[in-house]
């Protein structure tokens, strides 16, 4: 459980120390990529809890989703349609879904262990 948090910390530290900047016009793409990555991460955690985790699916999904989201935003900019909204909507809904499933799985696990302790 502490591993993702630790990874996040390391990443944040690396990013803050590197002092890297993305030009302003590309920061849109990066934010959407972050959203996609978060979505995949939570999907992975859910899959892990439901014991359907497959690392190939996870890794491919991680990179593919990021590229797809950024590509969609890029296409949107060039077509004059705010396509990145579609990506934000899709990833947002999935994020909520995944987190809800994770919460439920954890809750049932907890009640199960409490019951076994009582028995």
């Amino acid at each position: 459980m502490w591993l993702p948090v630790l990874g996040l910390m390391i990443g944040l530290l690396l990013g803050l120390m590197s002092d890297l900047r993305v030009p302003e016009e590309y920061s849109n793409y990066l934010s959407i990529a972050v959203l996609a990555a978060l979505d995949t991460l939570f999907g992975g955690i859910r899959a892990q809890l439901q014991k359907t985790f497959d690392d190939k699916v996870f890794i491919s999904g991680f990179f593919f989703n990021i590229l797809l989201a950024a590509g969609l935003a890029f296409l949107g900019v060039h077509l004059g349609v705010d396509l990145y909204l579609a990506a934000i909507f899709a990833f947002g809904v999935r994020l909520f879904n995944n987190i809800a499933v994770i919460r439920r799985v954890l809750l049932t696990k907890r009640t199960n262990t409490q019951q076994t302790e009582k028995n």
Partner: protein
Amino acid sequence: MKLVPMRKRLIFLITTVIIGFMVAIQFHSTQEPKARDTRDIWELRQDVEKVKKVQQELNSEIYKYEQLIEEYSGTGEEGQIDTLKETLKELKKEAGITEISGQGIVLTIEPLLNDEDLVGHSAFRIQPELIRRLINELNTYGAQEISIDGERIVNTSPIREVNDKTYINDEPLSGIPIEIKVITLDAKKLHAEMMTSQSGEEFAREGLRLSSRIESIVTLPPYEHQIRVKYMEQKEET
């Protein structure tokens, strides 16, 4: 609880590191870049000079007001009233609602050509823009008080065009020639500046001549209308 295999852990770790990295970069990028101070020594010196000047002005102002406070509090009731009256007078003078005289110049706007040449010529009109430019130029060269055609120019004096007529202080300009009286500390210098001024050429383009003469005593009429104060508020007592 069953232990998660090493491989999966590693994958999770790497993914979260990437996410953290992206978030950090995003955070960096969306932050406003710090404005760097790029002034060199010379510019810094100039800025210091400027600030020092401002400080000096402020100091002298503080001194003035401190003296005023002393006068208010020190003398008896009569003296206080006198001081108040004095202040009121000074403020009125500053606002331009008193008659004022002093050395200065008189500018005259008249037709550039002789009267005989003007047969059949339509009446001249002085564009408000011309007058505005002239006032700006006069102020640049150190004019203290200005009146145009008997209308005192204060900070809020409107100069506009209504129905093809130029109005100053909501009064139409009388016909040509028009006199502009200016009070200044150095009349000679202002006269010399006005002889070669940009405004002179602009008036000439409209067929008007702007001539200037020095006078030892120029008397300007007071501003006669209500001064409307729109964007000022009374300061609350502290």
